[in-house]
């Protein structure tokens, strides 16, 4: 597992990106680590809490150096009790702190179901706006790990259904950094999803950058078909677009990033051009963000040139443990490209 690099040492934290900032090359893991360092260095009110967050850089090694830099009060190892310690974070946020809570696997989010559904999103509302709830929840989702069916959910769509929350997903080192800073900066409860299959990926990171709230990223412009993806599916969508390019198909790729608020205008602008859509999702389609996008765009009157397509997990199967089947059920670049081709054909 990674060891702390220079990027994991706190630097002069800046609140806003200095225009001249030079991007550094970091892994996704290091980018998250850097965002944690910078957010904690920028504001004493920020703390990190969760199970085993401190020792040995945390379970996914995203927290390297934090315990040493900020001490055990601000890098707080909790007992195993997700609902309880998320409630604790809520309480902290009501009296001036800005906790970042690590829920180790996204599959454990339901263990904190009440805090996530009835408390964090509704707390400000039911007080008539008396308080803000600046809590960030980092959770690690996704398959590829051969962790089996209770440790492989992405989980992000469960929370789209809940007014009061924000939901954001990180697909690359650069966005992992800037989105985590944005999440911590925001005064509302924000679920921030990492993907366990991405920790080793390298990419440019603009230290100090804070992403714009609710803004999807058009990673590749295109005129024939729009592919929308999140998390691990983004790199597969980009790979699919490469394949398609060599077939003469010009695919746009959008990293949706935020599920709540949902950036319909950015997706709309693209599909107005392409009139074709493929959603590439590491989740069951029913009640997910892909269905939400297709539905809302259709309701909004997009004039599809051919029916939208989806590349999703099987409708009726939990994630299998066995490596060949785990690989088989996950949408691949090939399947995404094939869906795009079909949409262009038909």
């Amino acid at each position, binding site marked *: 597992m990674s060891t702390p690099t220079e990027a994991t040492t706190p630097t002069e934290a800046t609140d806003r990106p200095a225009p001249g900032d030079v991007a550094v090359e970091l892994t996704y893991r290091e980018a998250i680590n850097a965002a944690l360092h910078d957010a904690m260095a920028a504001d004493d009110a920020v*703390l990190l809490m969760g199970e085993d967050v401190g020792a040995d850089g945390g379970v996914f090694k995203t927290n390297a150096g934090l315990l040493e830099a900020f001490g055990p*009060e*601000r890098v707080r190892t*909790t*007992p195993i*009790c997700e*609902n*309880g*310690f*998320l*409630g*604790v*974070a*809520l*309480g*902290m*946020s*009501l*009296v*001036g*702190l800005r906790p970042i809570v690590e829920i180790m696997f996204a599959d454990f989010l339901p263990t904190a179901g*009440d*805090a996530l559904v*009835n*408390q964090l999103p509704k*707390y*400000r*509302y*039911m*007080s*008539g*706006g*008396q*308080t*803000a*709830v*600046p809590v960030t929840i980092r959770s690690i989702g996704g398959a590829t790990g051969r962790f089996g069916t209770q440790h492989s959910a992405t989980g992000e769509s469960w929370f789209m259904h809940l*007014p*009061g929350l924000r939901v954001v997903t990180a697909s690359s080192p650069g966005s992992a950094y800037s989105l985590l800073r944005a999440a911590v900066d925001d*005064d*509302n409860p924000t679920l921030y999803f990492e993907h366990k299959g991405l920790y080793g990926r390298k990419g440019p990171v603009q230290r100090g950058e804070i992403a714009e709230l609710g803004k999807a990223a058009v990673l590749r412009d295109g005129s024939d078909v729009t592919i929308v993806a999140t998390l691990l599916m983004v790199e597969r969508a980009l790979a699919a677009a490469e394949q398609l390019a060599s077939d003469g198909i010009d695919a746009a790729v959008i990293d949706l990033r935020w599920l709540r608020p949902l950036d319909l205008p950015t997706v709309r602008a693209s599909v107005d051009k392409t009139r074709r859509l493929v959603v590439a999702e590491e989740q069951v389609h029913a009640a997910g963000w892909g269905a939400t996008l297709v539905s809302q765009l259709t309701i909004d009157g997009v004039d599809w040139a051919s029916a939208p397509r989806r590349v999703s997990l099987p409708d009726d199967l939990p994630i299998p443990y066995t490596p060949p089947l785990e690989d088989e059920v996950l949408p691949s670049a090939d399947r995404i490209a094939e869906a795009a081709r079909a949409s262009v054909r038909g």
Partner: protein
Amino acid sequence: MTEPASSPPDRLEWYQTMVRIRLFEEKVQELFMTGQIQGTTHLCQGQEAVSVGAIAAMRPGDVQTNTYRGHGEALALGMTPETAFAELMGRSAGGSGGVGGSMHLIDFSKGNIGANAIIGAGLPIAVGAAVAFQMQRKPNVALSFFGDGATNIGTFHEAMNMAAVWTAPVVFIITNNLYGEYSPLRTTTPIDDLARRADPFGFPGAIVDGQDIDAVYAATVDAVERARGGGGPTLLEMKTYRYRGHSRSDPAKYRPEGELERWKARDPIDILGQRLIAEGVIGPGDPTEIRNETQAEIDAAAERAAESPYPTLEETIPYVYAD
């Protein structure tokens, strides 16, 4: 927030506050009958000494969380009956602008940082506030009020455990009124004295006579000041009783005959009233007079509350997200 606990307590004010809570709750029932309040409500007649006595132990900057049965705590913390009625009536002038309702009388400016409709949910919130105070090096304490039934949900255990492990300045207050909704304690809970539930966390638990406001106050001051001094959490079990059913729709037929009457014979308002008379703080006619004055205050508050308009949808949009 009431006066700092260090100044001698104003027990006449306690008395008045208990009467205010009692008459507020009775008025709520009446307003239901006339349709001026809709939905459901959970009243606390009989439990006033717990709310008032424990809250009297708080100092400025201290906070608490309570429950759907939280009118007593809200009023004890100084929410005006008018603001409370307006909330129950769903009016703009309510503490939450009318969007919260009976189960959510909340006032951050008075240390009332939460009234929760989910069993157990208020406990970790109080622990979180307490740990925050500790990290901020503030000399403050958090209290959490909850019911006997809530001691069976996991969140209770989780909150107690974290409070202990972090020596959080928090006081857990069980308002043990012997029932969940319709179920007597013994059908859901294998022990009678819930104070015992502190033991596996290594901090003290104490049984308190919840009908005796002086006892409630003394026990809470002890616990609050111990917490403030870095001594960690305490679990206080206040033995009390709710006179009414669980909620509006519950006639409480499941209670054994005579039980209500036995508890009414130890009414917390009467106990303090008789003590104040014996001590010469008030005269024998004063209870009636206080009741009458308070009744007039409550009636007027309800009337004024009813004059507040309903909120518009636009008004409530900023309650969702902070910016």
